[in-house]
């Protein structure tokens, strides 16, 4: 099964798995859900559909990065800039 998109999907999975290590609810929580999400679409064969799903995964990557950034930014703001009006 040498699907040309296979490596892209694997890479996406790896990236998400890596990001999940810092997930606020725990890496295990994240991994379970990640696996389920990928397993749900494991029988998809249509290349266009696969590309669409990869696109969605990349969107999730962006969302998680934004979530982490915001979490850190808020923590810093709360610790060092608490008395300022926002």
């Amino acid at each position, binding site marked *: 099964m040498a699907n040309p998109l296979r490596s892209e999907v694997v*890479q996406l999975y790896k*990236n998400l798995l*890596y990001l999940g290590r810092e997930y606020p609810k725990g890496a295990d929580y994240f991994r379970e859900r990640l696996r389920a999400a990928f397993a749900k679409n494991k029988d998809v064969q249509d290349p266009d559909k696969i590309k669409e799903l990869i696109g969605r995964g990349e969107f999730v990557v962006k969302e998680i*990065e934004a979530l982490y950034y915001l979490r850190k*930014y808020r923590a810093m*703001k709360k610790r060092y800039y608490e008395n300022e009006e926002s």
Partner: protein
Amino acid sequence: MSSRVLVGVKRVIDYAVKIRVKPDRSGVVTDGVKHSMNPFCEIAVEEAVKLREKKLIKEVVVVSCGPQQVMETIRTALAMGADRGIHVEVTGKEYETLGPLQVSKIMAALAKKEEAKLVILGKQAIDDDCNQTGQMTAALLDWPQGTFASEVTIDGDKIKIVREIDGGLETIQINMPAVVTADLRLNTPRYATLPNIMKAKKKKIANVKPADLGVDLTSRIETVSVDDPPQRLAGVKVETVDDLVAKLKEAGNI
């Protein structure tokens, strides 16, 4: 304008970790605790990388002082886009007493050695909260400084810096070479993604000893004791307004 920027990064206990004080009050527990790059250093790295992407500077060099583990922090900075790293090896007793003065001496020596045009640092580290390294580095080099930067614009040999000061913003223009320290609102640091971390493994990290730079690391500071912040006392629930008034009177608030 093509030149080199030196960025200092510090490895600190991760911001999300609950800090515990050692029973003997000599410091905080660092063994087996998650560490990461100081958030303000991330902002400094991001700013340097952005300047390089705009082709205003040529090379971003990251520096970190500490034991072998700081290599990780340097790698993170390289994954964010820095070009090359310098690991200043400080271990054991010397690392324990390593303070802003010692680090700024190292930074100043490296800035001269690397012929840097600009030194960008985080305004402070979230572990010791000193907020001194940038200022001291500028003083040791006798360079102008732009601290608490929330906006940096390079124009030829000058830099325009918008500074965060009490109650507002101050815009200053200073000559390069200069030292800049990053405040929280300067930019949004990018995430060091897995593929970039892999690619960063190919980038070079030089190992330097403080002695090679002619820097003396003796510290005159002695830590007397490290204590937890005071615990917040439990509140009291009152049933009626009269009770509340009575309690407040008792506490001497009215």
